[in-house]
């Protein structure tokens, strides 16, 4: 089969699912609509499998499938095609999106079974997958932007899915507005890059990128990439635009798994990796990205320690892990960033779905203080969650270990990185281990604090199948990128992912040969840090549950600050949002009422008076109207001809 058809199926199948479910949203049965939606995404998954198989069959340097459907717009030299291309980077992404996506769709059938708007829900989910695929596959920044906006819209719709609850609707709006700030920066970045290169086509831009680094802060590429990065901070929840993501947990839990953990929030990382030839020549931008990434990783992890809501913990964990990805791309380790993106998609989707399973079992209870000891009620969920846990805290040989270790090592070793970044990353890793263990202990282990009225139970098979699949992936997912140092000592295990990505990733300039001893040492340090903090957490929350409270009381002000999320929301309200609202109010009271309204009144009076005069012409006689048209044409024609 030719590629254009496969590509069309890949893209259109979720859209068709959206249309089917969207049009017939009034006949809600979860099995039917969910079945349609899951099938749609599964078809996409199959066609992306075929496409990627084709891709693997090609020679390494020519691995690219480019399909152009039609010309979208053309203004002078500015030409945009509705064209899509798959290369090594986007191949990983489409597999993750459609693969994890179909698992989450499957999970949703069980999770949303009793919801009234289930058909609408699946329609939105399919629309999201469609937009995400456009974002990932688009061959120009503008096509990507369409998907970028589209996923933003779907995210908004799904966060506010239960919009009758005011808080949830507000959370949706918060996400949307925060994203808009980033999107504006993304647009600006596009303008700058278009002015520089005269094209928005990603491949052309990558080809046109200069080979020497740009030192100036105000250079075109630095500026453009910085703007793009600000756009990425909006979409991928980095400082300072991360505030929407924790609130986004108001949406249904599978949505959090799909959009706010596995796919959409990684769009920023993906965009940077896809444009890596541009970013690598802007070291200043890279520095900013690395610092912001590292700071976010630590900052979000510290908030995560103090949260009591199971989903909030996971949300801050996501922000923190995204910080790691940005740290990776910031130090030039694009491959490591993609690797962590992939493994993170597996284990974080798994943990979100697991938490969804828990919440489902606990009758919509999200507070971990009211859980505990769920291990015996929900063996499968516990087992899979356990795999996710060991993966995220970086215990070898689980998925998270390989990717996180590679990031930490590169942040130390790369000429763009520094030991300080490694220290931040290691602290973040320790904190991650701590709060994740805390979550694990409070939820599944220890003694039960479940209220009498709630009877936890294992979720239905439909929901556990995705958990099991993702659990397996969390275990083995990291094995495609075993670092050279370990692979070498175990035999000759190649780093598959690195080989795969190698043709499309620009190497880091001035990278020196790695010292194996150093790498082993750093690896040991980070793993032991994580293990130690995990044990501390286990001790705190299982063995002596009263200790944490004591510690919290002893450092009361700091604890309060952290548990109130460093008051960032309040800060934003105080410095930006409220002044804006107040100023707008004043403007309205003064200028609007006194000038603009007056002008419109005058105009409307004039029009009304004039209309009274012209009204006589409206006789209702059709032929008279036609005659007036005719006379008008005659006058116009005679003007043209006599001229």
């Amino acid at each position: 089969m030719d590629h254009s058809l496969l590509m069309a199926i890949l893209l259109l199948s979720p859209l068709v699912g959206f249309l089917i479910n969207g049009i017939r949203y009034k006949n809600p049965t979860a099995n039917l609509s969910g079945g349609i939606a899951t099938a749609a995404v599964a078809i996409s998954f199959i066609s992306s499998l075929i496409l990627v198989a084709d891709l693997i069959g090609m020679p390494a340097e020519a691995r690219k499938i480019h399909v152009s459907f039609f010309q979208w717009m053309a203004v002078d030299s500015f030409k945009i095609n509705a064209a899509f291309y798959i290369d090594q980077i986007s191949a990983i992404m489409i597999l993750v999106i459609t693969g994890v996506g179909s698992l989450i769709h499957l999970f949703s059938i069980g999770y949303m079974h009793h919801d009234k708007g289930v058909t609408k829900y699946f329609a939105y989910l399919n629309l999201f997958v469609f937009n995400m695929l456009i974002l990932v596959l688009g061959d120009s920044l503008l096509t990507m932007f369409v998907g970028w906006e589209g996923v933003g819209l779907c995210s908004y719709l799904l966060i506010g899915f239960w919009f009758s609850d005011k808080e949830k609707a507000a959370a949706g709006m918060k996400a949307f507005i925060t994203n808009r700030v980033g999107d504006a920066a993304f647009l600006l970045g596009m303008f700058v890059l278009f002015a520089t290169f005269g094209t928005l086509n990603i491949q052309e831009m990558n080809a046109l990128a200069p080979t020497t680094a740009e030192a100036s802060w105000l250079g075109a590429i630095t500026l453009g990439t910085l703007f793009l990065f600000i756009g990425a901070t909006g979409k991928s929840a980095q400082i300072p635009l991360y505030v929407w993501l924790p609130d986004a947990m108001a949406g249904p839990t599978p949505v959090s798994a799909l959009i706010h953990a596995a796919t959409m929030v990684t769009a920023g990382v993906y965009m940077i990796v896809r444009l890596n030839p541009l970013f690598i020549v802007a070291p200043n931008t890279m520095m900013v990205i690395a610092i912001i990434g590292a700071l976010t990783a630590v900052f979000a992890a510290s908030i995560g320690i103090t949260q009591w809501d199971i989903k909030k913990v996971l949300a801050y964990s996501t922000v923190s892990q995204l910080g790691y990805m940005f740290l990776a791309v910031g130090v030039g380790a694009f491959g490591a960033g993609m690797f962590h993106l992939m493994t993170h998609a597996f284990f974080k989707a798994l943990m979100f779905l697991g938490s969804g399973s828990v919440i489902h079992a606990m009758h919509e209870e999200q507070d971990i203080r009211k859980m505990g000891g769920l291990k015996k009620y929900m063996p499968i969920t516990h087992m899979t969650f356990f795999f996710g846990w060991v993966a995220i805290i970086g215990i070898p040989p689980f998925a998270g270990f390989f990717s996180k270790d590679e990031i930490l090592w590169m942040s130390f070793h790369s000429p763009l990185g520094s030991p300080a970044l490694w220290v931040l990353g290691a602290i973040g890793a320790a904190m991650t281990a701590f709060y994740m263990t805390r979550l694990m202990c409070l939820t599944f282990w220890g003694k039960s604090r479940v209220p009498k009225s709630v009877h936890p139970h294992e979720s239905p098979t439909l929901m556990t199948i995705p958990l099991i699949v993702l659990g397996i992936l969390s275990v083995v997912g990291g094995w495609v990128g075993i670092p050279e140092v370990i692979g070498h000592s175990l035999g000759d295990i190649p780093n598959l992912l690195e080989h795969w990505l190698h043709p499309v990733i620009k190497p880091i300039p001035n990278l020196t040969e790695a010292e194996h001893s150093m790498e082993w040492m750093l690896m040991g340090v980070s793993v032991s840090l994580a293990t130690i903090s995990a044990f501390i957490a286990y001790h705190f929350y299982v063995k002596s549950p009263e200790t944490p409270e004591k510690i919290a009381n002893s450092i009361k002000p700091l604890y309060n600050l952290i548990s109130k999320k460093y008051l960032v929301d309040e800060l934003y309200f105080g410095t930006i949002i409220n002044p804006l609202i107040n100023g707008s109010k004043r403007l309205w009271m003064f200028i609007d009422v006194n000038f603009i309204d007056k002008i419109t009144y005058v105009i409307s009076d004039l029009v009304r008076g004039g209309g009274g005069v012209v009204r006589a012409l409206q006789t209702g006689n059709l032929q008279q109207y036609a005659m007036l048209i005719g006379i008008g044409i005659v006058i116009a024609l005679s003007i043209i001809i006599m001229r």
Partner: protein
Amino acid sequence: MITDVLMFWFLALVVLGSGLAVILFTNPVYSALSLVMAMVGVAAVFVTLGAYFIAGVQLIVYAGAVMVLFVMVLMLFDLKRETHSFAAGKISGALKLISVGLFAGLVVGGIVMSQGYFVKENEKSLGAASATQSVNTVAGSQTNLNVVNTDNTKVLGTVLFSKHVFGFEALGVLLTVIAVGTVALARSKGGTHAKH
């Protein structure tokens, strides 16, 4: 090619004659039948211009479908001869006739005056006739007007389904909307202004 010239004048006569008959007949059924005649004539004109498929479509759609509808409606409601088939009103009538006359004069005058322009345009495009766009690369000159051009319809289809594919889809939607709308209209029991 004297036959082509004769053919053109003959067809022009038929088309204009039956066109005039449409508005001069007082019986609307005769008007409709002469309109059918005019449309068949227009189809023939299309053939002289080398647009074979369009001529066939003109026959099928206009002469075969649209006018059947008109004739059917006229017969259905049995609308016979009217005593006053033209609108009343001397002044407005005169005004209308004058504007129509002026319009005709201006357009024909404009066409005659523009002679040089279009001819130039014609030669220009003939010089740079591209392979895909050439409906009648040879038919541009008068002598080859009659050659049965095999690729005419295929070129039409190719362009329709590549360049104009969105217009085509939009028309599909339009037709469905109209189909739904007319059924609703035909079923309605009259408007809100039921004064009877």
